[in-house]
């Protein structure tokens, strides 16, 4: 594997996320944990890929890796390993840190021994998220030292050196990334790989037990740690000043991917300026910032999302009594919304420096393009479950949903998603909707989500006897984020056999009295299962079990099994549009003569359309190669 090559100086192309994994490996990582979530997933998937390849050869990869049940558990597993002196990494998407925040906030009080890098992958513009929260606030909130890379090379270096910083400060640190770093490829230069420590030792000490008295003793220690962190921030190579063009009293302060846009924009616009490029953004290098402020008459602050640098720089300028112009979000030159790009930065600079814009007027196409929203795949078992649930109770049902592929059931023609907040929220909001409206409720969550945070609201529904139908869409994988294993699969992230936990066993243990286990490939029976669950007074659970079609077909191909495709008998078809208009499989389309057809390239051979066709016009065709 190229990513494991111990060839210092060699350059390879890596995804930002892979670069973080490589950085951890160079630092001698011992324990890595995660719960998958875009845009963070490939960090952990790369650990998993490495671990599985070693497991296959009966070898030890040198580190332990797991896909934990959720982000909080992931942080606790790696945190305890780090407290025991091992080097650990925990990665998650930004909203994952909300789940882990209870652990995070107090972990910052007690600190750690082995280096611990916590990666938060933020998602400005919500490319694949339910919000665009700025997790730099978590660094300020919890008191965590924070690094913010601009490029894959920096991501690798900050991870590698981050472990040293963490150990020097005896504190976990935050590596805050954004989608445009996680999912960008760039050249990285390999460094030597350190040997892992492998075995930790836990030193018993009352300081690890955060009783109120200990917490009161630890809080001043946390503040002291931040003073030391500031000293590191003053001298780290990650904070630096770049001079572009001639000497100037204009300064730009920036961090993360915004730096890339800033650098190119000032070069292209030929602006004389100095740039304070901040890589360690908490705590800020106060002295460095103050010297920079003093050397400028005008400062532009460029940062995506919240005005975190801007507010701190303003505070410093105020304390200095410095009369300088600060351009940023508060002056309306930059937005608090969405991710930045070269156009946004160039446009703002042109306004500030009164320059003619370099941006060419975009072509204005008169042709209206069809949208291509993401959709449930052809053959997805969730579509069949949704169709069956809709058939069971067509009117006035409220459908709370959850985070995963099945959120896509919101789209036409299914429209099976009415309320969504976050991981696990389906069942909790189901209880509230039942109390408030008295309507029939059918909620939906995936199997991985069930284990992540779906269980406590089920217990709540049982204890308070809420009249809800909670559906677990059990496709035996964490599909949306790239098919990671979870507690319901019989193998783990290192490719080793693992105890498979059945959803039905758990819900039975939670006290659910009415459990329906159904196979959505049998749409009729699944409809009956929903009907029975709806008739039951009190909480019921429907477990709809069928593997993700992508995985199922992948396995079939591996075993040389044939995947059928379906076709429409145009003689029998009456154009009733049930298959397209109500079921909505993307493999179906209207021909130019208004006939309904199945695209053989897209058909995954599930046969659901044949089951729902009222005229028996759909049947299996030849074998797909």
């Amino acid at each position: 594997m190229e990513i494991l090559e111990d060839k210092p100086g060699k350059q390879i192309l890596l995804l930002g996320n892979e670069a973080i994994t490589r950085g951890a490996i160079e630092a001698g990582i011992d324990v890595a944990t995660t719960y998958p979530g875009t845009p963070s997933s490939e960090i952990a998937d790369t650990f998993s890929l490495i671990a599985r390849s070693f497991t296959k050869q009966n070898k030890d990869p040198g580190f332990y890796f797991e896909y934990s049940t959720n982000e909080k558990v992931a942080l606790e597993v790696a945190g305890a390993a780090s407290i025991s002196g091992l080097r650990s990494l925990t990665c998650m998407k930004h909203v994952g840190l909300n789940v882990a925040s209870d652990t995070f906030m107090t972990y910052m009080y007690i600190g750690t021994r082995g280096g611990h890098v916590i990666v938060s992958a933020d998602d400005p513009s919500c490319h694949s998220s339910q919000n665009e929260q700025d997790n730099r606030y978590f660094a300020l909130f919890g008191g965590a030292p924070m690094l913010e890379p601009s490029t894959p090379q920096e991501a690798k270096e900050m991870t590698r050196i981050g472990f040293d910083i963490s150990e020097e400060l005896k504190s976990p640190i935050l590596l805050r990334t954004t989608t445009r770093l996680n999912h960008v490829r760039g050249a990285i230069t390999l460094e030597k790989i350190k040997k892992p420590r492998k075995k930790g030792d836990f030193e018993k000490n009352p300081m690890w037990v955060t009783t109120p008295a200990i917490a009161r003793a630890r809080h001043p220690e946390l503040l002291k740690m931040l003073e030391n962190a500031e000293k590191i921030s003053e001298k780290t190579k990650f904070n630096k000043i770049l001079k572009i063009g001639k000497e100037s009293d204009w300064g730009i302060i920036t961090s993360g991917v915004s730096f890339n846009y800033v650098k190119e924009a000032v070069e292209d616009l030929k602006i004389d300026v100095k740039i304070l490029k901040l890589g360690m953004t908490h705590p800020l290098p106060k002295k460095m910032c103050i010297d920079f402020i003093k050397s400028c008459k005008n400062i532009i602050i460029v940062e995506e999302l919240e005005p975190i640098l801007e507010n701190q720089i303003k505070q410093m300028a105020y304390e200095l009594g410095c009369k300088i112009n600060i351009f940023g979000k508060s002056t309306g030159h930059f937005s608090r919304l969405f991710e930045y790009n070269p156009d946004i930065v160039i446009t703002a600079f042109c306004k500030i420096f009164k320059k003619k814009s370099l941006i060419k007027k975009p072509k204005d196409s008169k042709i209206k393009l069809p949208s291509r929203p993401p959709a449930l795949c052809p053959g997805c078992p969730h579509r069949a479950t949704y169709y069956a649930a809709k058939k069971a109770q067509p009117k006035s049902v409220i459908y709370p949903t959850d985070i995963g592929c099945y959120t896509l059931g919101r789209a036409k023609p299914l429209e099976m998603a009415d309320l969504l907040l976050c991981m696990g929220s389906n069942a909790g909001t189901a209880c509230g909707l039942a109390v408030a409206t008295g309507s029939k409720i059918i909620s939906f969550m995936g199997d991985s989500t069930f284990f992540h945070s779906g269980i406590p609201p089920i217990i709540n529904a049982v204890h308070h006897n809420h009249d809800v139908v909670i559906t677990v869409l059990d496709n035996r994988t964490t599909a949306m984020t790239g098919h990671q294993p979870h507690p319901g699969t019989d193998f783990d992230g290192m490719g080793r056999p693992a105890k498979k936990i059945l959803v039905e066993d758990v819900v039975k243990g939670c006290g659910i009295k009415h459990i329906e286990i159904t196979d959505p490939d049998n749409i009729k029976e699944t409809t009956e299962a929903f009907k029975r669950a709806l008739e039951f007074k009190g909480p019921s659970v429907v477990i709809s079990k069928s593997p993700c079609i992508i995985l199922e077909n992948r396995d079939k191909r591996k075993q040389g099994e044939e995947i059928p495709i379906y076709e429409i008998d145009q003689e029998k078809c009456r154009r009733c549009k049930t298959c397209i208009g109500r079921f909505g499989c993307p493999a179906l389309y209207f021909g130019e003569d208004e006939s309904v057809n199945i695209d053989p390239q897209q058909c995954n051979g599930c046969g659901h359309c044949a089951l729902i066709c009222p005229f028996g016009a759909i049947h299996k065709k030849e074998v797909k190669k």
Partner: protein
Amino acid sequence: MKRKINIVLAGVGGQGVITAANILGKAAVKAKVNVFVSEVHGMAQRGGAVNCTVRLGNVSGPLVPTGSADAIVSLEPSEVLRNINLSNKETKIITDITPVIPFTVSTGEDEYPNIDAIFKEISSYSKLYKIDATKIAKDAGAIITKNIVMLGALAALNILPFKKEILLETILENVPSKFKEVNKKAFDGGFKSVKQ
């Protein structure tokens, strides 16, 4: 390298756009040219519009400013127009001629535009190279090599700052040995379709 070269790769999820962008990036590293590649993951993957940008030379990040693409390489005709704001009158545009109809057309929410109107529109802005990549890939032996056909076509435009052999070498390094011949044919087929 002082210059910046901006390449946009477009298509629909599942067509191999990300793979093509990744190979282009690896070829650049091999040729010791500075490179950044942006990708689309997650929600947009299946059936969604995919756009990857590859920037080479004196660049700091992967995103292409409006109107500054040197080339747009699209595996689907209408996806060129989705990225047309990145083009200017010097931009070279290569597209496969086979449309992929989105399901929003089936459900009646959208219409797929007339294909000749799409080509006419593109030609009115920029230099358009229409190629039947689907056929070239089929002739090479595997329809999934359509993305490699497009890389071959890109190599014929004389805008890459390295030799086409480096790109081909990188492709062959990144496919299983039993598919090397098919990919080589696909690449050559794509190259010839532009360079006649």
